[in-house]
């Protein structure tokens, strides 16, 4: 298999109406930054025929109209863009206020214990550094944020909760995620925020962009 790396991305078809530019096969910081940078630069002036540009964790998805446009032509254009310097849009910073623990975060105590911390110690470490929005996905307005340092990495729960409420702050895999709608999840629920990253009546419906920085604050 070809080895994909942030400086050696791979352009592949995804179905007959989509193209995926992959910057990695595993989630890491460099691949995520490369994907976000490339999506930004393509969004500034999309190649003719490209109808949607979607940054993901380590890849960028582009949708085109197969009735009108030519896959090879778009790929050629994307290859040219890849050689350019990725544009660095200045990220916005957001403060996310979270009620940690209790009924809002039923897994907080167990998560802290698993990491050899008490709850206040975990909250302090969790909030110590801003996290980057890695991508939006899975559900409307759902954001993945990372990365926590090594001492704050836990796998997901064994079992999936069939429903957690909108605003749930979730923790697993070295990341913190925020649910904008009611969702099922196998992540640890550590708190809840009043912030909602999804409003179908506004345009765009989400406020957070991949690359934005989030500072978590306990209330």
């Amino acid at each position, binding site marked *: 298999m070809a080895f994909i790396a942030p400086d050696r991305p791979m352009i592949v078809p*995804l179905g*007959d109406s989509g193209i995926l530019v992959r910057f990695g096969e595993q989630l890491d910081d460099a691949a995520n930054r490369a994907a976000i940078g490339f999506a930004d630069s393509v969004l500034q002036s999309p190649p003719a025929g490209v109808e949607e540009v979607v940054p*993901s964790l380590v890849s960028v998805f582009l949708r085109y109209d*197969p009735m009108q446009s030519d*896959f090879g032509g778009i790929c050629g254009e994307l290859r040219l863009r890849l050689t350019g310097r990725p544009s660095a849009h200045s990220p916005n910073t957001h403060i996310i206020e979270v009620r940690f623990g209790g009924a809002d975060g039923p897994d907080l105590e167990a998560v802290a214990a698993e990491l050899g911390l008490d709850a206040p110690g975990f909250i302090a470490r969790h909030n110590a550094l801003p996290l980057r929005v890695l*991508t939006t996905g899975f559900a*409307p307005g759902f954001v993945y944020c990372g990365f926590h340092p090594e001492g704050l990495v836990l796998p997901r729960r064994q079992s999936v909760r069939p429903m957690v409420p909108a605003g749930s702050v979730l923790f697993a895999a070295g990341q913190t995620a925020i649910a*904008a709608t009611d969702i099922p999840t196998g992540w640890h629920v550590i708190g809840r925020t009043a912030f909602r990253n999804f409003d179908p009546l506004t345009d765009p419906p989400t406020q957070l962009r991949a690359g934005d920085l989030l500072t978590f604050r306990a209330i």
Partner: protein
Amino acid sequence: MLSHGVSASGPMDRRSFARAGQWAGATDGTGIEFTMAGLALTLVEGEVFAAWDGGEFSVNLNAGRLDWPGYTRLAPGDRLEISAGPGGNYGYLRFGGKLNLVPVLGSVATSTRARLGGLSGRTLAAGDVLEIVGVGAAPRSPQMETREEGPIRFLWGLHAELFSAEVRQAFVAAKFRTSTAMDRMGVRLGDESGVFSAARVLSLVSDPVVAGDIQILGDGTPIVLMRDHQPTGGYPRIGTVITADLDRFAQIRPNREISFAPVSLDHAHRILRSQTP
């Protein structure tokens, strides 16, 4: 809208939806999708042209049988009743003019997964009242197409190379069976010959998902993702059903044998461009 975590939704069988719209003189992208559960409605007031297509359902106007597909003009008090027929999972009822719905995120589709669009993002329920506004366009008879038979055509997918050459050959040679676990999000397939029985649970990074993706769950169950698919997914995807065959696939009822045949991207585009409408 994928970048906001919402998949596109829309009709499961796009071409049947389009044909019903041509018959009816629809002026936008609104219409009603129904399943084998059927649909009955009464025109409360006014007059409107209505047309139906998709699958093979049975349709009655005031207890008199009409053709499927077909159309009629409805007058106040007319009752149109649609029930399951010999084939197909999804049918469409469209009108001259448009259904008065508030577009959400640029679409009038209902996504029951995201609970958006249509009537509060839910399926229709008995007693709902829908309003048709505007004047219909001149109805056109759509070009009838010959029904496609044969294997469902697909492109090798994002993770095809994670499957061994033997498994890829077996995938193309085997018969699968549609299951009753099918809805607008996906169709689970029975794998009686055990093509994927040795599937391992792989930990893959999540990548964007498209309608038609054939993903293999950790227990070896193949599932074809449909219009209300999740926006991203981390299960290995061996292939993607081509756009030209996804409508046909959506109409295959549970417990039918199907097989898959690979095509090239060029070929998929040529088939799509030769299709009507």
